């Protein structure tokens, strides 16, 4: 099944003079972790908003082209059904906390309450998510007293608890330290392992290299590159589009520039180790 399919989609926000999406054609398969990268104004968040139905229901503007989510045209989806089917995590931790619940536990419950989940099931799901994300220490705190990083984790937990099949996640680690970022990626990978389809907008290509199935590079509202993670991240063209390659990939390119090429272009540290070892052994022999 196809998660989402876009054909020549153009979108301009009301009152904007330039289009945010300028002819996007893209197909994302179900059950995969799809990374979306690019410069800050390249259209990544707009794409997320579109897939989630925020465009056109919340953000008005001019939308042309065909958009299908989970096999159905976007405009045929009932907004309420779409919010059930597609979970969404944004990058601003301060606006994702509702502000109307007294404890983190209740905050996570909010979405489940709105979906009419029975209390016992609610409690079970929340306990599981708290365990998964490691929120035990703050489960009784007031969400309004939390730091940005903590709020981000709570917002994440709240959406995961709602257990939608599709998740659109927009820069969830911008406020987090490296350890917490890795933990978040592992949670996302675990979601994928359980069959969810995920679209993840991120700058951290090192982590995407390990966990993502496909990468789509957006530039100025268009798809510049798309395909399996390996193919895209090892393509030197990503530099033109403002994408920072994984450290080891950049290392490989610079080695090549210095006249010391590796046999293959690594995107993860394990691959890099193998490739460099190979070169060292070849030189030794």
């Amino acid at each position, binding site marked *: 099944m196809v998660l989402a399919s876009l054909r020549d989609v153009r979108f301009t926000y009301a009152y904007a003079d330039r289009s945010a999406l300028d002819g996007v054609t893209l197909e994302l398969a179900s059950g995969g972790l799809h990374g979306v990268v690019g410069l800050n104004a390249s259209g990544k968040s707009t794409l997320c908003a579109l897939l989630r139905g925020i465009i056109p229901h*919340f953000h008005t503007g001019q939308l042309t082209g065909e958009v299908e989510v989970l096999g159905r045209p976007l405009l045929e989806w009932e907004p*309420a059904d779409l919010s059930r089917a597609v979970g969404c995590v944004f990058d601003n931790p301060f606006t994702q906390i509702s502000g*109307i619940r007294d404890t983190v536990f209740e905050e996570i419950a909010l*979405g*489940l309450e709105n*979906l009419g989940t029975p209390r016992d099931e609610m409690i079970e799901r929340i306990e599981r998510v708290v365990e998964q994300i490691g929120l035990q220490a703050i489960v009784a705190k007031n969400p309004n007293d939390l730091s940005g990083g903590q709020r981000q984790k709570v917002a994440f937990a709240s959406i995961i608890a709602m257990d939608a099949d599709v998740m659109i996640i927009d820069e969830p680690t911008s406020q987090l330290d490296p350890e917490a970022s890795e933990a978040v990626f592992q949670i996302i990978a675990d979601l994928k392992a359980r069959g969810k389809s995920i679209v993840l907008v991120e700058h951290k290509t090192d982590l995407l290299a390990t966990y993502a199935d496909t990468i789509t590079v957006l530039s100025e509202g268009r798809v510049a590159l798309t395909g399996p993670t390996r193919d895209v991240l090892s393509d030197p063209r990503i530099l033109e589009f403002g994408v920072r390659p994984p450290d080891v990939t950049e290392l490989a390119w610079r080695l090549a520039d210095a006249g010391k090429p590796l046999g293959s272009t690594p995107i993860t540290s394990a691959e890099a180790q193998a490739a460099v070892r190979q070169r060292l052994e070849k030189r030794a022999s």
Partner: protein
Amino acid sequence: MSTRPPLTTAGDYRRPVTLGNPILDLNPITMLLSITFVAVVAVAVDGWVAPVVVAAVFVLLAFLAGKGRTYLVLILKLWLVVGLLLFVLRALLIKGETVWIPLGPIAVTEEGVLDGLRFSTVVMAICGAVTLFFTLVPMRRFTLALERLGVSPRASYVVLASFQAITDLGTTARAVMDAQKARGIETEGNLLVRAKAFFPVLAPVFLSAMSATEERAIALDARAFNAHGPRTSLVLLPPTAAGERVVVVLCALLAAAAITGGVLGWF
């Protein structure tokens, strides 16, 4: 405003969430109605004795609920600042015949004093009622009780988010003053210095409270806030005891008696 014992295990949610005190656990609607009816007595009965008695009753209730000290501090501040001011103003400005302190046009008369006493005590009783309600009832429980009666969750959101925004204003103001300090703008010193630092940012403080409303609306939508269909609630309020209805009815009768008595001139 919430002072319940910390909930650290999920088990706490499987049972009704108690605030640890039988009065605090009363249904918020019961509280609202009872306090209102008792306050009505203060207004309906003539003179200044009834309002003082009512105010005392409120203080007693606060102590029984375990919030005596908090309430008393608030209420004493109110009495001393507002109550006293109202009394003095009425005493000086209301004209009468029996002059106690001759001060020309603002002579203190017996009628003025009695009027002042009556007016200030009634206002204090009403303020006492409102303060008592907000001291004893966490807003969250109140909106929960309302939702159980059929009030829309959107209305609860507006109420709770507004209260939260007021709390946030304090935090935002502090963050803003920190930023001003960090810029090299003096905030410590006499009133003028502080004012010069604070006033330019007053508008932005308020604006930021209302900022990102669209983002918040979208975030709420992501939590299925706009979904149709029945909602459930994680928090269970303690069941409304039969006795509570009796209490409300008694208070209502008391209020009715007071009004009737006031009209018929029993007092």
